[in-house]
């Protein structure tokens, strides 16, 4: 009986099951990048449980000529390098898929499946006979499997060689042994294995000038371009690499000729101190930020209220993970929407930005500092683990050299000498935003006392109800002003007029776009709106009003953005249908499309025109 074998060119999922710390990460990235260099988009994801014995990690690469960068789900080719997770890994392979493993040690037949294709290569034996040093055995084993995979999947070896050469630029001594290891694996596969398998990579031109980068690194770069000089943070997955990337970028771009730093980074004692330092620095006229995740946001609550009320520009990068508390610390979610939007006690509301990919992590990252200064309030940049900690293909970063920092309404010594009326909480031009002075501006004018307690327009302490209400109303008005200043929503109109809409945000983007294609192919048409910020602009409300039913697609349990839409837009819950994915894995197009089509079926919506169930992205069977 001929075995079932998945056949696909430039459209499959390959997963690497590794042991943490075995040096596999750089080999796996090398593999993914080599496919990119062949002009074929890939979307890799790191999966790393936080506390399972044996420290397993997985690296899942979706090879996708159509450019669908969301997680597809399922696995067509498993590189099983971790004996401890063997059973789970083998079980995960799609029927007709491939299992690639180290065949040095005999495995009992019961450890395999009849419906998959097994490719064994004696990796340990190969490295043990080629190297004596245990460290070398470990490292080169990874390169050797990349070599073998290149033979099996038709990854161009010259491309891999070129990447290795780039990696070891300046350390040329390390180049030949790596190239040798690559060929060791490749040659073994070519001579000993049947490389004529069903999955292949074929050169294409679908990558263009796109870049491949992690959202955290991009956001940190945005902070550099946004003029941030002070960063205070407390380590927490998945945000730590943002602060670390800021340090790396600053070292490169912000070191003066004499070696001095044009920035200061403090690893604080906790998140309370981190946000306190940010507030102190921003009060004093520096651009400052912190990077954290949900538990950190919880700890910052009191301070965030102070920053709102005392009108301190500050930037918070929240790289969201599954909560509550340590919940699933290494899994992704969009579950801090409400805790950030209304962070703190008393009446507070905050500006949130929702980047969809590293490109927007960079642009919003920089923009956040202008917005903070302009609006004099905390700005939250809402990343999540999925975009923060994975390399993602995106548009190249852009910067206009004519652009300058917008420091907002700051009164200078000259303004004060010219007799300008300075009231720290005085709205002079109707946008709700007052002027501020930096400490130390003028010997006799413009100083004021900042406090969380209520005060009048001239910053004088008062507990008078009228003055309190006056100030709170101005803050509300300022929030209205924010609506036009924040990134506006983007509409993807359906090809056909439709009564149905979908709202989504952040890292859901690629899955949503793919889902819209799937739905369209089955004759279901939806207008889609990607929300990029809170407060919502009027366009959002108009979009909802223009549709009978709007699906709100989110990665949390409680439909948090939907709640925000209902509360802030006075929208009836009946119009907003939640589509919720919150198991900690990134949302998939299959999930969204299934949910929406099922819900539409309940609404008795007939497909506009039936298209024969065509193969859509990811369906390989």
């Amino acid at each position, binding site marked *: 009986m001929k075995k079932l074998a998945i056949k696909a060119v430039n459209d499959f999922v390959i997963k690497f099951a590794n042991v943490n710390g075995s040096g596999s990460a750089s080999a796996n990235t090398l593999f993914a990048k080599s496919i990119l260099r062949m002009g074929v988009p890939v979307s890799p994801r790191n999966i790393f449980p936080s506390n399972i014995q044996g420290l397993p990690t997985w690296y899942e690469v979706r090879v996708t000529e159509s450019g669908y960068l969301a997680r597809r789900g399922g696995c067509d080719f498993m590189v099983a390098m971790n004996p401890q997770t063997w059973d789970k890994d083998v079980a995960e392979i799609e029927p007709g898929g491939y299992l690639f493993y180290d065949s040095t040690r005999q495995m009992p037949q019961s450890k395999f499946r009849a419906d998959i294709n097994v490719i064994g290569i004696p990796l340990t034996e190969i490295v043990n006979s080629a190297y004596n040093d245990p460290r070398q055995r470990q490292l080169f084993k990874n390169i050797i499997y990349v070599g073998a995979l290149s033979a099996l999947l038709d990854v161009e070896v010259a491309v891999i060689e070129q990447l290795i050469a780039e990696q070891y630029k300046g350390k040329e001594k390390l180049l030949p042994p790596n190239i040798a290891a690559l060929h060791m694996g490749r040659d073994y596969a070519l001579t000993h294995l049947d490389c004529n398998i069903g999955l292949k990579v074929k050169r294409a031109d679908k990558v263009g000038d796109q870049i491949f980068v992690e959202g955290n690194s991009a956001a940190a770069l945005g902070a550099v*371009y946004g003029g941030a000089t002070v960063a205070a943070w407390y380590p927490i997955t998945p945000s730590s690499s943002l602060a670390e990337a800021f340090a790396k970028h600053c070292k490169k771009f912000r070191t003066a000729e004499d070696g001095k730093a044009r920035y200061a980074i*403090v690893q604080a004692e906790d998140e309370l101190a981190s946000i*306190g330092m940010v507030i*102190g620095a921003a009060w004093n006229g520096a651009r400052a930020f912190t990077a954290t995740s949900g538990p950190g946001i919880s700890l910052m609550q009191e301070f965030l209220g*102070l920053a709102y009320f005392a009108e301190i520009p500050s930037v918070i990068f929240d790289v969201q993970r599954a909560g509550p508390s340590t919940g699933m610390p290494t899994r992704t979610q969009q579950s801090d929407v409400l805790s950030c939007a209304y962070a703190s006690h008393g009446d507070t509301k905050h500006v949130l930005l929702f980047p969809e990919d590293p490109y927007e992590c960079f642009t919003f990252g920089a923009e956040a500092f202008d917005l903070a200064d302009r609006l004099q309030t905390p700005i939250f940049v809402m990343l999540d683990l999925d975009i923060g900690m994975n390399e993602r293909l995106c548009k190249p970063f852009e910067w206009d050299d004519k652009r300058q920092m917008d420091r907002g309404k700051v009164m200078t010594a000259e303004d004060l000498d010219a007799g300008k009326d300075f009231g720290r909480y005085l709205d002079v031009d109707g946008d709700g935003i007052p002027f501020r002075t930096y400490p130390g501006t003028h010997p006799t004018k413009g100083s004021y*006392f900042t406090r969380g307690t209520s005060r009048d327009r001239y910053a004088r302490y008062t507990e008078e109800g009228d003055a309190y209400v006056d100030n709170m109303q101005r803050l509300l008005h300022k929030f209205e002003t924010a609506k036009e200043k924040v990134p506006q929503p983007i509409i993807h109109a359906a090809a056909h007029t439709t009564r149905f809409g979908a709202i989504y945000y952040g890292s859901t983007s690629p899955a949503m776009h793919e889902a819209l294609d799937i739905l369209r192919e089955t004759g279901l048409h939806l207008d889609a709106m990607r929300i990029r910020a809170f407060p919502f602009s009027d366009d959002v409300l108009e979009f909802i009003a223009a549709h009978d039913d709007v699906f709100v697609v989110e990665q949390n349990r409680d439909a948090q953005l939907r709640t925000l839409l209902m509360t802030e837009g006075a929208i009836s819950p009946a119009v907003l249908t939640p589509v919720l994915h919150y198991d900690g894995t990134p949302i998939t197009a299959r999930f969204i499309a299934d949910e929406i089509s099922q819900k539409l079926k309940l609404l008795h919506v007939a497909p506009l025109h039936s298209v024969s169930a065509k193969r859509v992205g990811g369906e390989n069977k």
Partner: protein
Amino acid sequence: MTYLAKPKLHHPNLPRNKLGYTRRDYEGAISTLCAGCGHDSISAAIIQACFALDLPPHRIAKLSGIGCSSKTPTYFLGNSHGFNTVHGRMPSVLTGANLANRDLIYLGVSGDGDSASIGLGQFAHVMRRGVNMTYIVENNGVYGLTKGQFSATSDKGSKSKRGAVNADEAIDMVGLAMQLGATYIARSFSGDKEQLVPLIEGAILHQGAAFIDVISPCVAFNNHDGSTKSYDYVREHNEAVNFLDVIKFRDEITTQYAPGTLQEVVQHDGSILRLRKLHENYDPTDHIAAMNHLAESRARHEIATGLLFVNGEPADLHAAANTVSIPLNMLDDKALNPGSAALAKLNAALR
């Protein structure tokens, strides 16, 4: 309405300092604290010290937490920016402010509840980071603002106004600051202006983390018999180890003292801390000896006051962060932004 502006009428004969300011120019709004509150005396001492040091008032930033003590920055230095932060977290805000502009003088004002209870963590970390500041704890052994609960500096066995006895061990802020690496550590008493003013002056001139624990009786809740933070108790148990004269850099040295009774410490900015020894063997530059002395005097129920420790050559947070000499908040686009060419290169490396 609790804001009372002081009339700005200057008597023509009021003495002026080198900058031409009178003492009035360093004052703030009229205090709303209880009459006789120790905190008001500390405000007066701060005003005196800033006047005497010829500091431009607007170059000082005053930060505080929450409490009666933390309210006091409203009552001094009316021409300085001030920040009344949240309870126990002033140290982090001050740290951030200091990072943003290394050229201002930072004055942190706090209470024993603010710094020893809710804010103990931040107190510890601001000291170990060596933030260049003057940090004053106005220590009354109670929560004044919330009406008289014990604080973490209340001595074990001391009695509250209502007769409750404190069963918990007291936190000694000076001892903590010693361990945590503050580089200028003093203790004084709000009722002893002569001792306190020079200690504040020395702290301001000190280019590192300077901490002053000022015992400051709360007349409303902790000035009764059985309290160890009352005016009477502190006067009886006060053991000054030295008396400080601060000689600013540039000032001429005129007075002469008998050899052996005097110790001079030259600070980084050139100022000289001249100590008249009141306790013959006390050397505030000897860290270990100072710690031993403090432990001994504590065991004897004495309150050691004076300049307890100083390191004339402190390193501060900016030294550790290796920051440029120009304040970070003054760097412009050119200094901060790598520009599009650098970005293009970066893009190329990400393909």
